[in-house]
């Protein structure tokens, strides 16, 4: 019972934060709400017994990615946007379609019964017996997903190089200030 209460409270807060991220006029405040969003999502992950992913979520998302966002906002000194911070004229049709899709999906999800779960090999008990969540994830990651893992490291390397090349100051360029 208390678990359900926790989930609904967290879900409510996540919804509020998500809406605030999108609608707030001030980019820094949006970033703060995004941090709240990610932190609460990590809590949901932890309640789903995914401790490793929860820790990584806070470490990488809230601790690195959003800090970068905040850093760039401060670097460019972006103030609050004017009244027209949302794109006007808003294509009402798109809003309508998206809202209808959303409500139908959520309604269907909440009204229909639970999808039947297939019994996989890593039930919580099996994970506990195997040496905990982190250990088991590492085992899966380094056996079944070795190649994707290596490729993702190359991807990071490429992204680092790309970011440096793109953001490097070009001396010939006109600098606006």
């Amino acid at each position, binding site marked *: 019972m208390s678990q359900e209460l926790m989930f609904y409270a967290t879900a409510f807060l996540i919804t509020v934060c998500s809406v605030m991220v999108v609608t707030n006029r001030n980019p820094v405040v949006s970033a703060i709400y995004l941090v709240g969003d990610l932190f609460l999502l990590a809590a949901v992950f932890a309640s789903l017994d995914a401790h*490793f992913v929860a820790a990584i979520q806070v470490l990488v998302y809230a601790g690195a990615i959003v800090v970068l966002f905040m850093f760039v906002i401060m670097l460019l000194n972006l103030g609050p946007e004017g009244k027209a911070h949302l794109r006007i004229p808003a294509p009402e049709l798109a809003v309508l379609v998206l809202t209808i899709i959303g409500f139908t999906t959520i309604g269907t999800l909440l009204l229909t*019964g639970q999808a039947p779960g297939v019994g996989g090999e890593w039930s919580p008990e099996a994970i506990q017996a195997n040496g905990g969540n982190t250990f088991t994830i590492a085992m899966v990651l380094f056996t079944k997903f070795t190649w994707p893992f290596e490729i993702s490291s190359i*991807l990071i390397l490429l*992204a680092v190089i790309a970011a440096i090349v793109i953001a490097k100051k070009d001396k010939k360029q006109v600098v606006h200030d």
Partner: protein
Amino acid sequence: MISINHYLALATVMFLCGTLGVLFRRNLLLVLMSVELMLNAVNLVFVAGSRLVNNLDGQVMVFFIITVAACEAGVGLAMVIALYRRYGTVETSFLRMLRG
């Protein structure tokens, strides 16, 4: 045990917020943040699904998604800085070079 459908509903809400942000925000940084929101909705689906079917592939996939999101944020923000240097703004409505 909370039904997986509730997790999926929450993910839908987050994903829709993200989509609306990408479509309707003028600020390029906010567009990137909305993309992060959408990726996180997907993460939630993966973790909830992984718990439902007792398979850890979902959580490993979240690990990869976070990796890709970090790359995306790094390159995206570098592009935002470059654009700001070039045009002095990060509003999408001013960046219409490709529209001809």
